[in-house]
């Protein structure tokens, strides 16, 4: 997946130009019409919102908006879920992402921990979906 490291720029590497600023806005607008494969993040946010009132999701925005805004940087316990409710979260995700329901059950003992960061859980969903689409 990743092994991120930071480096200093080498000679000859292209630096973005002021023209790129205008191009970047065009790219954002193009993305609004881009049909992307689901990565599980939307489904995870919806599953959370169905179990706790501390999370709300606005599905009418693109991309969807959550309250709290940095939802995926929080833990499940931080939005009011305990270990008893993590099983229900997994059941809801199995309905929203039926292609990977087997992966969710097979790894339940690892996934059903409310101290997980929501973003890490979302990363698992994305990778599981990629494996399923392979």
């Amino acid at each position, binding site marked *: *997946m*990743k*092994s991120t490291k*930071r*480096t*200093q*720029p080498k000679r000859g*590497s292209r*630096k*973005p130009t002021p023209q790129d600023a205008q191009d*970047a806005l065009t*790219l*954002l607008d*193009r993305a609004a019409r*881009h049909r*992307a*494969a*689901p990565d599980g*993040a*939307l489904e995870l946010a*919806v599953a959370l*919102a*169905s*179990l*706790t*009132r*501390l999370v709300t*999701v*606005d*599905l*009418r925005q693109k*991309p*969807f908006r*959550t309250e709290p*805004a*940095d*939802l*995926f*940087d929080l833990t499940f*316990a931080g939005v*009011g879920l*305990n270990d*008893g*409710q993590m*099983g*229900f979260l997994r*059941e*809801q995700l199995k309905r929203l992402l*039926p292609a990977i329901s087997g992966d969710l059950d097979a790894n*339940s003992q*690892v996934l059903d*921990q409310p*101290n*997980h960061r*929501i*973003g890490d859980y979302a990363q698992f969903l994305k*990778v*599981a979906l*990629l494996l399923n*689409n392979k």
Partner: protein
Amino acid sequence: MLSNARLWGTLCLAALIVCLRCRAEDLTALRALQVYATAQPPHADLTFTEPLAPNSAPLFTLASATAQGEWNPLGITAMQGLGGRPRMLRVYYAEPLPAEHTRLRACTESGACVEARIDSPSDAAAAILKKLGALPATQQDKSLLASLFFGRAAGLNVGAADLNLVRSDPGAKDLSYFLRLKRGAASGMDPRHVEAGAHWRRNFLLNSDRRAAIATALRGRPAEAQALLDELQTKWWAGHTLDIGVKVEGDASGQQQWIGLVDAGWGLQSTTRRVALPGAPGWLRFRWLAGGVEAGRDQARLKMGADAALVIQAREETAPIRRFEFVAHSTARWLARPELGARGLRPWTQLDAKLFVLESASLRYGLRLSLQHGSLPPLYERVNSIHLGFVVESRDTGE
């Protein structure tokens, strides 16, 4: 004309100012890069150190390379903010990466770059599962609740202990092991109860029709999905559970023999409800044990009960009181067969008010005021006591 000392001093000061300005820009620079070889359409996820303004796109370039080769620039076709992740940006590029390329790099306008190794999805899955499974031991425990109490009774200083430990089985789905101990040091304060065992839990969601409708509406009909989700959020119950397990009970003093029991129950789990309090978010959740049985060689019990928890969490990290919890637990057992002379209804109620003042990465420390009333198996000794003591808990507590 400036002297040499003043000239060099001015140059050094200018260099320092430039360096500080560069470091300030790096504070909002790239922090991480995630890329999956088989993602369709091809894209990479960039994480920045600060949240991005809506509809903003920082300037950067992408390039890929073999293990030791030169960087080949990638044509960026689109960029997209990600819901719930204000520090992240998804970048789409024109074509899949060449199979022999194993590295991806993103460089910002300031010239700072981050690199990522391109792994296969199977390697990525193993890596994320390893990361998820690497929680500290105290966070792996589903719940760790340990309290020591000190109080006064009949003119004496007395102590008591209350331990609740639940841990998932690492290999079997929905299977957990538990250990619960309640002891006191004086008559009228000593439930003399310990139990240990394993239970399997199956969860069943309520409102299945609405949950299924959300699944079909989610991708193509956002307004309909939003209406369904808003309606689901008004529901008080998330689902129901079926528990089946085995346990041994004892009096924690070694005077009585251990009792082996089969324990089964059916209950309802609430959603988490928001509690509106000024300055501190709070939430409420509860569980109702609608019916259960405990059966052994000489024991036949029916039981019913309920748990409720009110949690108030401070927003500020420096708040003197980090967290307040009020937890209520009640179980009523009806003994169909006499046990040590006890028969009929045997209720147990425990109310805890907990004030946490210290937190580590995995544990909380504070004070607990506890009221215990009723009796617990196997001895059913009457308890009516109020304790004040210290409490240590894992950062998340189970039921």
